[in-house]
Protein backbone atom coordinates (compact mmCIF):
# COMPACT_ATOMS: atom_id res chain seq x y z
CA UNK A 1 0.00 0.00 0.00
CA UNK A 2 1.14 3.54 -0.64
CA UNK A 3 2.88 4.87 2.52
CA UNK A 4 0.38 7.68 2.84
CA UNK A 5 -2.35 5.06 2.32
CA UNK A 6 -1.17 3.05 5.32
CA UNK A 7 -0.97 6.21 7.40
CA UNK A 8 -4.34 7.33 6.05
CA UNK A 9 -6.00 4.23 7.51
CA UNK A 10 -4.09 4.53 10.78
CA UNK A 11 -5.18 8.17 11.02
CA UNK A 12 -8.80 7.25 10.26
CA UNK A 13 -8.68 4.52 12.93
CA UNK A 14 -7.33 6.94 15.54
CA UNK A 15 -9.83 9.64 14.65
CA UNK A 16 -12.69 7.17 14.75
CA UNK A 17 -11.51 5.98 18.17
CA UNK A 18 -11.55 9.57 19.42
CA UNK A 19 -15.08 10.20 18.11
CA UNK A 20 -16.36 6.96 19.65
CA UNK A 21 -14.73 7.83 22.98
CA UNK A 22 -16.42 11.24 22.92
CA UNK A 23 -19.70 9.41 22.41
CA UNK A 24 -18.91 7.20 25.41
CA UNK A 25 -18.72 4.10 23.24
CA UNK A 26 -15.11 3.18 23.95
CA UNK A 27 -11.98 4.26 25.79
CA UNK A 28 -10.07 7.17 24.23
CA UNK A 29 -6.68 6.82 22.62
CA UNK A 30 -4.02 6.94 25.34
CA UNK A 31 -2.79 10.32 26.59
CA UNK A 32 -5.78 12.66 26.35
CA UNK A 33 -6.53 15.02 29.24
CA UNK A 34 -9.62 13.44 30.90
CA UNK A 35 -11.11 16.77 31.99
CA UNK A 36 -10.86 18.25 28.50
CA UNK A 37 -12.19 15.05 26.96
CA UNK A 38 -15.27 15.21 29.18
CA UNK A 39 -15.74 18.92 28.39
CA UNK A 40 -15.48 18.17 24.66
CA UNK A 41 -17.98 15.29 24.94
CA UNK A 42 -20.44 17.54 26.79
CA UNK A 43 -19.93 20.29 24.22
CA UNK A 44 -20.84 17.89 21.38
CA UNK A 45 -24.09 16.91 23.10
CA UNK A 46 -24.90 20.56 23.81
CA UNK A 47 -24.24 21.55 20.22
CA UNK A 48 -26.57 18.86 18.94
CA UNK A 49 -29.18 19.83 21.54
CA UNK A 50 -29.08 23.50 20.58
CA UNK A 51 -29.22 22.71 16.85
CA UNK A 52 -32.40 20.67 17.33
CA UNK A 53 -33.90 23.23 19.74
CA UNK A 54 -33.47 25.90 17.06
CA UNK A 55 -35.34 23.84 14.47
CA UNK A 56 -37.99 22.48 16.82
CA UNK A 57 -38.90 25.34 19.20
CA UNK A 58 -42.38 23.94 19.95
CA UNK A 59 -41.01 20.48 20.69
CA UNK A 60 -38.41 22.03 23.01
CA UNK A 61 -41.07 24.11 24.78
CA UNK A 62 -43.31 21.05 25.13
CA UNK A 63 -40.68 19.40 27.34
CA UNK A 64 -39.67 22.59 29.10
CA UNK A 65 -36.77 22.14 31.53
CA UNK A 66 -36.75 18.37 30.83
CA UNK A 67 -35.79 18.78 27.18
CA UNK A 68 -32.00 18.87 27.62
CA UNK A 69 -31.92 15.72 29.78
CA UNK A 70 -34.34 13.77 27.59
CA UNK A 71 -32.47 14.75 24.44
CA UNK A 72 -29.14 13.79 26.04
CA UNK A 73 -30.60 10.33 26.76
CA UNK A 74 -31.64 10.03 23.10
CA UNK A 75 -28.17 11.16 21.94
CA UNK A 76 -26.54 8.43 24.05
CA UNK A 77 -28.47 5.81 22.04
CA UNK A 78 -28.40 7.54 18.61
CA UNK A 79 -25.06 8.53 17.14
CA UNK A 80 -25.36 11.23 14.51
CA UNK A 81 -25.60 9.97 10.94
CA UNK A 82 -24.08 11.82 8.00
CA UNK A 83 -27.56 12.38 6.57
CA UNK A 84 -28.89 13.80 9.87
CA UNK A 85 -29.83 17.44 9.63
CA UNK A 86 -31.01 19.06 12.90
CA UNK A 87 -34.53 18.84 11.44
CA UNK A 88 -34.22 15.08 10.96
CA UNK A 89 -32.47 14.68 14.32
CA UNK A 90 -35.41 16.39 16.05
CA UNK A 91 -37.96 14.24 14.25
CA UNK A 92 -36.06 11.09 15.20
CA UNK A 93 -35.97 12.29 18.81
CA UNK A 94 -39.74 12.85 18.72
CA UNK A 95 -40.21 9.30 17.42
CA UNK A 96 -37.93 7.84 20.10
CA UNK A 97 -39.76 9.66 22.89
CA UNK A 98 -43.20 9.31 21.34
CA UNK A 99 -44.97 7.85 24.36
CA UNK A 100 -43.83 10.76 26.54
CA UNK A 101 -44.63 13.49 24.03
CA UNK A 102 -46.99 16.13 25.41
CA UNK A 103 -49.85 17.11 23.13
CA UNK A 104 -48.05 20.24 21.91
CA UNK A 105 -45.11 18.06 20.90
CA UNK A 106 -47.37 15.63 19.01
CA UNK A 107 -49.01 18.49 17.13
CA UNK A 108 -45.66 19.85 16.02
CA UNK A 109 -44.52 16.43 14.78
CA UNK A 110 -47.80 15.96 12.92
CA UNK A 111 -47.27 19.34 11.26
CA UNK A 112 -43.77 18.21 10.26
CA UNK A 113 -45.10 14.90 8.89
CA UNK A 114 -47.60 16.78 6.70
CA UNK A 115 -44.70 18.56 5.04
CA UNK A 116 -41.89 15.99 5.06
CA UNK A 117 -41.71 12.29 4.21
CA UNK A 118 -39.04 9.93 5.50
CA UNK A 119 -36.69 8.56 2.84
CA UNK A 120 -34.25 6.13 4.41
CA UNK A 121 -32.36 8.05 7.07
CA UNK A 122 -33.40 11.50 5.91
CA UNK A 123 -36.54 13.50 5.12
CA UNK A 124 -37.70 15.05 1.85
CA UNK A 125 -40.38 17.67 1.25
CA UNK A 126 -43.74 16.23 0.25
CA UNK A 127 -45.24 17.41 -2.98
CA UNK A 128 -48.65 15.79 -2.90
CA UNK A 129 -51.57 15.59 -0.46
CA UNK A 130 -51.38 13.86 2.89
CA UNK A 131 -53.96 12.74 5.42
CA UNK A 132 -53.05 11.50 8.87
CA UNK A 133 -54.93 10.63 12.03
CA UNK A 134 -53.54 10.08 15.55
CA UNK A 135 -55.35 8.97 18.67
CA UNK A 136 -53.84 10.42 21.86
CA UNK A 137 -55.10 8.24 24.68
CA UNK A 138 -53.52 10.17 27.50
CA UNK A 139 -55.10 13.46 26.42
CA UNK A 140 -58.33 11.73 25.23
CA UNK A 141 -58.06 13.47 21.88
CA UNK A 142 -57.96 12.53 18.23
CA UNK A 143 -55.88 14.61 15.84
CA UNK A 144 -56.86 14.72 12.18
CA UNK A 145 -54.43 16.48 9.86
CA UNK A 146 -54.55 16.94 6.11
CA UNK A 147 -52.53 18.73 3.50
CA UNK A 148 -53.63 19.47 -0.05
CA UNK A 149 -50.64 21.60 -0.95
CA UNK A 150 -48.06 23.77 0.77
CA UNK A 151 -50.71 26.49 0.92
CA UNK A 152 -53.52 24.32 2.28
CA UNK A 153 -52.96 22.47 5.55
CA UNK A 154 -55.34 21.89 8.43
CA UNK A 155 -54.92 20.20 11.79
CA UNK A 156 -58.01 19.49 13.89
CA UNK A 157 -57.84 18.29 17.47
CA UNK A 158 -61.08 16.70 18.77
CA UNK A 159 -62.13 15.26 22.11
CA UNK A 160 -62.73 11.54 21.63
CA UNK A 161 -65.65 9.43 22.82
CA UNK A 162 -64.82 7.22 25.80
CA UNK A 163 -65.19 3.90 23.96
CA UNK A 164 -62.29 4.71 21.59
CA UNK A 165 -59.80 4.59 24.51
CA UNK A 166 -60.30 0.86 24.75
CA UNK A 167 -58.36 0.53 21.49
CA UNK A 168 -54.59 1.04 21.14
CA UNK A 169 -53.63 4.54 20.06
CA UNK A 170 -52.30 5.12 16.56
CA UNK A 171 -48.95 5.81 18.12
CA UNK A 172 -46.65 4.87 15.26
CA UNK A 173 -45.77 7.81 13.05
CA UNK A 174 -46.89 7.70 9.43
CA UNK A 175 -44.25 6.57 6.92
Amino acid at each position, binding site marked *: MHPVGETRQQ*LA*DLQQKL*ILSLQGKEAP*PHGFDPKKLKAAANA*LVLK*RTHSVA*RCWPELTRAFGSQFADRFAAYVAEHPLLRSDSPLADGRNFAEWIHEELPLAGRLTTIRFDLRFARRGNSFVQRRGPKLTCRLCRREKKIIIAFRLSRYCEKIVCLRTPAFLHHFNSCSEPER
Partner: protein
Amino acid sequence: MLGWRPELALFIERQKEIGFVEAIVEGLDPWGDLPQALMNLKEKGMTIIPHVGGIEPIMPERIQRITRLAERLDAPFVSEHVAFVRADGVEAGHLLPIPRTEASLNVVVENIEKVKACLSVPLALENIASLLEWPGAEMTETEFFTEVLERTDTLMLLDVANVHANTTNHGGDPLSFLNRIPLDRLAYVHVAGGIGHDSLYHDTHSHPVTRPVLDILEELCRRVYVPGVLLERDDRFPTDEELSEELASIATTINRGNLRREECASGR
Protein backbone atom coordinates in the same frame (compact mmCIF):
# COMPACT_ATOMS: atom_id res chain seq x y z
CA MET B 1 -19.15 41.15 7.34
CA LEU B 2 -21.31 38.37 8.66
CA GLY B 3 -21.72 34.64 8.27
CA TRP B 4 -24.97 34.09 6.37
CA ARG B 5 -27.55 32.21 8.44
CA PRO B 6 -31.28 32.02 7.69
CA GLU B 7 -31.96 33.74 11.03
CA LEU B 8 -29.77 36.69 9.99
CA ALA B 9 -30.96 36.88 6.37
CA LEU B 10 -33.25 39.88 6.91
CA PHE B 11 -30.66 41.79 8.94
CA ILE B 12 -28.04 41.23 6.23
CA GLU B 13 -30.42 42.24 3.45
CA ARG B 14 -31.20 45.52 5.23
CA GLN B 15 -27.57 46.57 5.69
CA LYS B 16 -26.19 49.23 3.38
CA GLU B 17 -22.68 47.90 3.80
CA ILE B 18 -22.05 44.30 4.69
CA GLY B 19 -19.14 43.70 2.36
CA PHE B 20 -19.23 39.94 1.99
CA VAL B 21 -20.85 36.87 3.53
CA GLU B 22 -20.02 33.23 3.97
CA ALA B 23 -22.44 30.41 3.23
CA ILE B 24 -22.05 27.03 4.94
CA VAL B 25 -21.78 24.40 2.19
CA GLU B 26 -23.29 21.57 4.24
CA GLY B 27 -26.59 23.44 4.54
CA LEU B 28 -27.04 24.04 0.80
CA ASP B 29 -28.13 21.90 -2.13
CA PRO B 30 -25.69 22.68 -4.96
CA TRP B 31 -28.03 21.29 -7.62
CA GLY B 32 -31.34 22.44 -6.17
CA ASP B 33 -32.90 25.67 -4.99
CA LEU B 34 -30.59 27.89 -3.01
CA PRO B 35 -32.17 30.16 -0.36
CA GLN B 36 -33.82 33.08 -2.13
CA ALA B 37 -32.33 35.55 0.35
CA LEU B 38 -28.85 34.33 -0.54
CA MET B 39 -29.51 34.58 -4.27
CA ASN B 40 -30.87 38.11 -3.76
CA LEU B 41 -27.53 39.07 -2.23
CA LYS B 42 -25.69 37.54 -5.17
CA GLU B 43 -27.89 39.49 -7.60
CA LYS B 44 -26.94 42.68 -5.78
CA GLY B 45 -23.29 41.85 -6.36
CA MET B 46 -22.37 40.73 -2.86
CA THR B 47 -19.41 38.40 -2.55
CA ILE B 48 -20.39 35.02 -1.11
CA ILE B 49 -17.72 32.58 0.07
CA PRO B 50 -18.65 28.89 0.38
CA HIS B 51 -17.40 27.61 3.73
CA VAL B 52 -16.79 23.89 4.24
CA GLY B 53 -16.47 21.64 7.29
CA GLY B 54 -13.44 19.44 7.72
CA ILE B 55 -10.68 18.06 5.51
CA GLU B 56 -11.72 14.57 4.49
CA PRO B 57 -10.48 11.70 2.45
CA ILE B 58 -11.11 12.33 -1.20
CA MET B 59 -14.74 11.74 -2.10
CA PRO B 60 -15.74 12.82 -5.61
CA GLU B 61 -19.31 13.70 -4.58
CA ARG B 62 -18.06 16.10 -1.92
CA ILE B 63 -15.64 17.82 -4.28
CA GLN B 64 -18.42 18.17 -6.86
CA ARG B 65 -20.66 19.80 -4.22
CA ILE B 66 -18.01 22.37 -3.39
CA THR B 67 -17.10 23.18 -7.00
CA ARG B 68 -20.74 23.41 -8.09
CA LEU B 69 -21.60 25.79 -5.26
CA ALA B 70 -18.55 27.94 -5.96
CA GLU B 71 -19.71 28.25 -9.60
CA ARG B 72 -23.33 29.05 -8.75
CA LEU B 73 -22.32 31.68 -6.20
CA ASP B 74 -19.51 33.15 -8.38
CA ALA B 75 -17.30 32.76 -5.34
CA PRO B 76 -13.78 34.29 -5.50
CA PHE B 77 -12.53 31.39 -3.33
CA VAL B 78 -13.66 28.61 -1.03
CA SER B 79 -12.70 28.20 2.63
CA GLU B 80 -12.28 25.04 4.69
CA HIS B 81 -11.15 24.07 8.21
CA VAL B 82 -7.97 22.22 9.10
CA ALA B 83 -9.96 19.64 11.04
CA PHE B 84 -11.94 16.44 10.68
CA VAL B 85 -15.66 15.93 11.30
CA ARG B 86 -15.96 12.21 10.56
CA ALA B 87 -13.79 9.13 10.33
CA ASP B 88 -14.55 5.81 8.68
CA GLY B 89 -18.28 6.51 8.59
CA VAL B 90 -18.56 7.76 12.20
CA GLU B 91 -19.77 11.35 12.58
CA ALA B 92 -18.35 13.68 15.20
CA GLY B 93 -20.98 16.39 14.77
CA HIS B 94 -18.29 19.05 15.21
CA LEU B 95 -14.78 20.00 14.12
CA LEU B 96 -12.03 18.00 15.80
CA PRO B 97 -8.28 18.61 15.60
CA ILE B 98 -5.94 16.57 13.44
CA PRO B 99 -2.95 14.93 15.20
CA ARG B 100 0.05 17.21 14.68
CA THR B 101 2.46 14.66 13.26
CA GLU B 102 4.43 14.48 10.03
CA ALA B 103 2.43 11.41 9.00
CA SER B 104 -0.92 13.18 9.46
CA LEU B 105 0.44 16.25 7.71
CA ASN B 106 1.16 14.16 4.60
CA VAL B 107 -2.42 12.82 4.57
CA VAL B 108 -3.91 16.29 5.05
CA VAL B 109 -1.74 17.78 2.32
CA GLU B 110 -2.75 15.02 -0.09
CA ASN B 111 -6.46 15.59 0.65
CA ILE B 112 -6.17 19.33 0.13
CA GLU B 113 -4.25 18.98 -3.12
CA LYS B 114 -6.95 16.70 -4.52
CA VAL B 115 -9.63 19.30 -3.66
CA LYS B 116 -7.52 22.13 -5.06
CA ALA B 117 -7.02 20.28 -8.31
CA CYS B 118 -10.79 20.29 -8.91
CA LEU B 119 -11.43 23.88 -7.87
CA SER B 120 -11.20 26.71 -10.35
CA VAL B 121 -10.86 29.23 -7.51
CA PRO B 122 -8.30 29.42 -4.68
CA LEU B 123 -8.78 27.63 -1.37
CA ALA B 124 -8.35 29.26 2.06
CA LEU B 125 -7.70 27.12 5.15
CA GLU B 126 -8.88 27.99 8.64
CA ASN B 127 -7.44 27.19 12.08
CA ILE B 128 -9.96 25.70 14.53
CA ALA B 129 -10.59 25.95 18.26
CA SER B 130 -10.42 22.72 20.16
CA LEU B 131 -10.82 21.71 23.78
CA LEU B 132 -8.64 18.69 22.98
CA GLU B 133 -5.04 18.21 22.05
CA TRP B 134 -3.70 14.96 20.67
CA PRO B 135 -0.88 13.47 22.73
CA GLY B 136 2.44 12.90 20.99
CA ALA B 137 2.42 16.11 18.96
CA GLU B 138 5.57 16.46 16.83
CA MET B 139 4.99 20.14 16.15
CA THR B 140 3.20 23.16 17.58
CA GLU B 141 -0.13 24.42 16.24
CA THR B 142 1.53 27.28 14.37
CA GLU B 143 4.13 24.94 12.86
CA PHE B 144 1.46 22.47 11.69
CA PHE B 145 -0.82 25.20 10.32
CA THR B 146 2.08 26.89 8.53
CA GLU B 147 3.29 23.60 7.03
CA VAL B 148 -0.20 22.82 5.71
CA LEU B 149 -0.50 26.27 4.14
CA GLU B 150 2.96 26.32 2.59
CA ARG B 151 3.01 22.74 1.28
CA THR B 152 -0.42 23.18 -0.35
CA ASP B 153 0.24 26.83 -1.33
CA THR B 154 -3.19 27.88 -0.07
CA LEU B 155 -4.58 31.06 1.42
CA MET B 156 -5.19 31.49 5.12
CA LEU B 157 -8.46 32.18 6.88
CA LEU B 158 -7.33 33.22 10.36
CA ASP B 159 -9.89 32.78 13.12
CA VAL B 160 -8.72 35.10 15.91
CA ALA B 161 -11.35 33.76 18.32
CA ASN B 162 -9.85 30.30 17.83
CA VAL B 163 -6.37 31.71 18.51
CA HIS B 164 -7.72 33.05 21.81
CA ALA B 165 -9.51 29.78 22.61
CA ASN B 166 -6.50 27.55 22.02
CA THR B 167 -3.94 29.74 23.78
CA THR B 168 -6.33 30.02 26.74
CA ASN B 169 -7.05 26.29 26.92
CA HIS B 170 -3.64 24.86 26.01
CA GLY B 171 -1.17 27.61 26.82
CA GLY B 172 0.81 29.90 24.59
CA ASP B 173 0.70 33.55 23.73
CA PRO B 174 -1.68 34.86 21.04
CA LEU B 175 0.78 37.49 19.85
CA SER B 176 3.48 34.84 19.39
CA PHE B 177 0.91 32.86 17.40
CA LEU B 178 0.42 35.86 15.09
CA ASN B 179 4.18 36.25 14.70
CA ARG B 180 4.68 32.62 13.65
CA ILE B 181 2.10 32.20 10.88
CA PRO B 182 2.48 33.34 7.25
CA LEU B 183 0.42 36.53 7.34
CA ASP B 184 1.24 37.17 3.67
CA ARG B 185 -1.22 34.35 2.88
CA LEU B 186 -4.09 36.04 4.74
CA ALA B 187 -7.35 36.02 2.74
CA TYR B 188 -9.72 37.08 5.50
CA VAL B 189 -10.43 36.73 9.22
CA HIS B 190 -13.11 35.25 11.46
CA VAL B 191 -14.20 36.64 14.81
CA ALA B 192 -16.73 35.07 17.12
CA GLY B 193 -17.93 35.09 20.69
CA GLY B 194 -17.61 32.51 23.42
CA ILE B 195 -17.73 31.99 27.16
CA GLY B 196 -15.55 30.69 29.94
CA HIS B 197 -16.85 27.69 31.86
CA ASP B 198 -15.06 25.55 34.43
CA SER B 199 -11.71 27.18 33.61
CA LEU B 200 -12.01 26.41 29.89
CA TYR B 201 -12.94 28.80 27.09
CA HIS B 202 -15.70 27.61 24.78
CA ASP B 203 -15.83 29.06 21.26
CA THR B 204 -19.62 28.93 21.11
CA HIS B 205 -20.44 31.41 18.30
CA SER B 206 -23.46 32.12 20.49
CA HIS B 207 -22.22 34.95 22.70
CA PRO B 208 -20.82 38.43 22.17
CA VAL B 209 -17.23 38.78 20.98
CA THR B 210 -15.01 39.29 24.03
CA ARG B 211 -12.37 41.97 24.58
CA PRO B 212 -9.37 39.55 24.38
CA VAL B 213 -10.53 38.42 20.92
CA LEU B 214 -10.88 42.04 19.75
CA ASP B 215 -7.41 42.77 21.13
CA ILE B 216 -5.94 39.95 19.01
CA LEU B 217 -7.80 41.34 15.99
CA GLU B 218 -6.32 44.79 16.60
CA GLU B 219 -2.81 43.31 16.92
CA LEU B 220 -3.35 41.43 13.67
CA CYS B 221 -4.41 44.62 11.88
CA ARG B 222 -1.34 46.33 13.32
CA ARG B 223 0.84 43.69 11.65
CA VAL B 224 -0.81 43.31 8.27
CA TYR B 225 -3.55 44.69 6.02
CA VAL B 226 -6.64 42.55 6.59
CA PRO B 227 -8.83 42.22 3.46
CA GLY B 228 -11.98 41.39 5.41
CA VAL B 229 -13.26 40.35 8.84
CA LEU B 230 -16.34 38.16 9.23
CA LEU B 231 -18.40 37.75 12.40
CA GLU B 232 -19.70 34.23 13.00
CA ARG B 233 -22.91 33.96 14.97
CA ASP B 234 -24.72 30.60 14.95
CA ASP B 235 -27.17 30.67 17.86
CA ARG B 236 -28.83 32.81 20.52
CA PHE B 237 -29.18 35.47 17.88
CA PRO B 238 -29.06 39.02 19.26
CA THR B 239 -31.35 41.90 18.38
CA ASP B 240 -30.55 43.93 15.28
CA GLU B 241 -29.31 46.74 17.52
CA GLU B 242 -26.95 44.47 19.44
CA LEU B 243 -25.64 42.98 16.22
CA SER B 244 -25.09 46.42 14.70
CA GLU B 245 -23.20 47.51 17.81
CA GLU B 246 -21.03 44.43 17.67
CA LEU B 247 -20.20 44.98 14.00
CA ALA B 248 -19.39 48.63 14.81
CA SER B 249 -17.10 47.53 17.64
CA ILE B 250 -15.26 45.20 15.24
CA ALA B 251 -14.93 48.02 12.69
CA THR B 252 -13.51 50.35 15.35
CA THR B 253 -10.99 47.69 16.36
CA ILE B 254 -9.90 47.23 12.74
CA ASN B 255 -9.51 50.99 12.26
CA ARG B 256 -7.42 51.27 15.41
CA GLY B 257 -5.12 48.47 14.28
CA ASN B 258 -4.81 49.99 10.79
CA LEU B 259 -3.90 53.38 12.24
CA ARG B 260 -1.19 51.85 14.41
CA ARG B 261 0.19 49.97 11.40
CA GLU B 262 0.29 53.13 9.32
CA GLU B 263 1.98 55.05 12.13
CA CYS B 264 4.60 52.28 12.42
CA ALA B 265 5.17 52.32 8.67
CA SER B 266 5.63 56.08 8.57
CA GLY B 267 7.99 55.92 11.53
CA ARG B 268 5.83 58.09 13.75
